[in-house]
């Protein structure tokens, strides 16, 4: 099921095995998007990386 990018409204097709909190890239504007719900699929702009993020 596709949905619209919250940034540019391009259609975005998350993978079939998408999980909540997974990150995907909008094919239209290259924004990093976070899957925030699965049924129905909902996307939000992913938060910017913070100083203490990493491995």
């Amino acid at each position, binding site marked *: 099921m596709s949905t619209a990018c919250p940034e540019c409204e391009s259609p975005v097709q998350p993978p079939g*095995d998408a*999980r909540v*909190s997974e*990150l995907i890239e909008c094919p239209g504007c290259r924004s990093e998007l*976070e899957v925030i719900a699965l049924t129905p699929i909902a996307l939000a702009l*992913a938060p910017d990386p913070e*100083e*203490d*993020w*990493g491995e």
Partner: protein
Amino acid sequence: MTGSIAGPAGVALLASRIRADDKRILAALERRRIPVEHVDTRRLTFSAQAVGAPWRLVLNREISATRARYAAHCLEHAGVLVVNSAAATDVCADKWLTTLALRREGVPTPRTSLALTPEAALRELDSFGYPAVLKPLTSSWGRRVSLLREPDAARAVLEHCAALPSPQAQLIYLQEYVEKPGRDIRVVVIGGRPVAASYRVAVDDWRCNVALGALSLPCPVTPELAKVAMAAAGAVRSDIAGVDVIEDGDGELLVLEVNHNVEFSGMQQAHGDRIDLAEELADHLLTRYGEQP
């Protein structure tokens, strides 16, 4: 404890963002028929009075080092087995504490110093020598890691450090710059066993972080590499560890750091179907899960 607790799952994978590695781990655990759920760290709160949690084991994959550390302590306080442990996460999340732990156990590292102010760092560099590498204590992916080739560059970088608002940014971690063959080595150690290694070959950068575009290529786990990687993971008491190793001009292996929240997509791609790191990790978690009462 409150948050997105969906039920009495046996294992929780704690993460505020699900990376490809995390999806592979979740799938590998599900194939083993362990009750597993993803728990979004951003939604959790903990009560100091509460004892008990709905999971027997938590795999801590939180991307924020601060949240990872505090979540690990809270969960252990509630009686949950956390992998990696809070103590290991504390050490690995701080490069200086990692260096101290490695040195205590006799693990070879490059020469390293900590200056408690940027001004002290500039004075220290007179005797420490150039080139030197300045690293933030808590950052990852090579961010703000600076190569100081001479005093003018050091002065400029240290002025920027002094202007940063975080008190921790005023602590200056200095490491000897080791001439390397354009690459370093990442070894994944799981349960004390070096499972796989990859060369990380720098591309258009002196740093070898995959996040900065370095290429991952398969690396054989030689007995020497296995020995130093196991010693490093043991020194920081890390159940699952990404050990970064550098080869100096004499071929000696030196440990740069140990990562507690290992990203292994690059290494997995490098090894193809010869090894499955998510499966290895799930096997280890299954063992630890079985050890719990």
